[in-house]
C-alpha cells in the first residue's frame, strides 16, 4: 500500500521520526535507528567539544537518514532563531524542529515564544516543525503562520506518561491541514499505536527507545506499533457499544 508521509513537499515511507538523545553510545544509537526504520531523525546543536569522538552526524549520514536539527535548550524566540540559523549553516538543511521551553522542570513548550519564533523562521525560509502543547487553537494558528507540521506533546519530554489528553490530539488532527506529529511522552509501543489510531500522521520519540533496556528491540516494537496504529486508523475501527453484539450465530 502506498501511504507516504509528506512534510514540506518531501516524502517519507516511515512514519516514525526518531530522536537521538539518551543513547548510551553511538553504536547503540545506530542499532536502534536501523531497527526503527526511521528516515528522519533529530539532533541538537551544542558548542563543539574538541575531545568528542565520533559524531551523531556520521551515523545519520552512513544510514542515509535525513537530519532534523532542533532548538532544544532555547528559552526565547531569539535564541531559537539563532540556533536554527546555525543549524542551517552547519547541517545544510532549512528544516528545523522548533522547540522553545518554558522551564527546566517540566520542559513544557512556551507557546508565546514558539509562535514568535515560528513566524520569524517561516519568513526566513525555514521548514518549521514546532513542538507545542496539546492545544488545538495554537496548532491552528501555527499552521496559518506557515508551519510545515505541528508537533503536539502526548506528555512531558522523557516522562513516558503516554498521551494524557487524547481528545485534544483528536481535535488537533481534525482541524489540521498539515501533518500532525505526536511528539514527547511516548513510553511504550501501545502509546505510539494510540497516537496513530487517533489520526496523527507520525510519531516522534527518543527516550522510550534510547533508555529502554534493549533499545534495538524497543525500536523495532515502535516501528511495528506505528505501522499497526496507522493501518488501524485507515481501516476504520468499529464503534464502541455498551452491550455485546454476537459474533457467532445465536440460533442453534
Amino acid at each position, binding site marked *: 500500500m502506498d501511504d507516504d508521509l509528506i512534510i514540506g513537499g518531501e516524502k517519507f515511507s516511515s512514519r516514525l521520526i526518531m*530522536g537521538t538523545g539518551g543513547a548510551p553510545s*553511538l553504536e547503540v544509537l545506530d542499532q536502534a535507528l536501523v531497527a526503527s526504520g526511521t528516515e528522519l531523525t533529530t539532533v*541538537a*546543536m*551544542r558548542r563543539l567539544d574538541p575531545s568528542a569522538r565520533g559524531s551523531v552526524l556520521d551515523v545519520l549520514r552512513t544510514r542515509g537518514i535525513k537530519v532534523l536539527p*532542533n532548538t532544544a535548550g532555547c528559552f526565547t524566540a531569539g535564541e531559537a532563531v*539563532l540556533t536554527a540559523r546555525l543549524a542551517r*549553516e*552547519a547541517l545544510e538543511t532549512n528544516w528545523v524542529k522548533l*522547540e522553545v521551553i518554558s522551564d527546566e522542570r517540566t520542559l513544557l513548550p512556551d507557546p508565546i515564544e514558539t509562535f514568535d519564533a515560528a513566524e520569524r523562521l517561516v519568513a526566513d525560509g525555514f521548514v518549521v516543525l514546532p513542538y507545542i502543547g496539546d492545544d488545538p487553537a495554537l496548532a491552528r494558528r501555527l499552521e496559518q503562520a506557515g508551519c510545515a507540521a505541528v508537533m503536539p506533546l502526548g506528555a512531558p519530554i522523557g516522562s513516558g506518561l503516554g498521551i494524557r489528553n487524547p481528545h485534544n490530539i483528536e481535535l488537533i488532527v481534525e482541524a489540521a491541514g498539515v501533518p500532525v506529529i505526536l511528539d514527547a511522552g511516548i513510553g511504550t509501543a501501545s502509546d505510539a499505536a494510540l497516537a496513530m489510531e487517533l489520526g496523527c500522521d507520525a510519531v516522534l520519540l527518543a527516550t522510550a527507545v534510547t533508555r529502554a533496556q534493549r533499545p534495538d528491540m524497543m525500536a523495532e516494537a515502535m516501528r511495528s506499533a506505528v505501522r499497526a496504529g496507522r493501518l488501524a486508523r485507515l481501516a476504520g475501527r468499529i464503534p464502541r457499544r455498551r452491550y455485546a453484539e454476537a459474533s457467532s450465530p445465536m440460533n442453534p
Partner: protein
Amino acid sequence: MNVTINGTAHELPSGATVTQAVRKLTEATSGVAVAVNDEVVSRGAWDSTALAEADRVEVLTAVQGG
C-alpha cells in the same frame, strides 16, 4: 587581542579571522557553524571576517538530542 571562544578566553593575534578562532577547536569545516556576537557568520565568510577585541565566538556542531 582577547576573544571568547565557546565561553573560554583566548588570545589571538590582532586582526585574526573567524577561521583562526575555529582552528583553536577543530580542523573540521563541515558540520560546524559559527556565530560572532550572536550573528551567524557563514562558512564562506570565515576567512574574510576579522574579529575584534572582546568578540564572543560560538562554534557549534550537532550532538545527540531530541
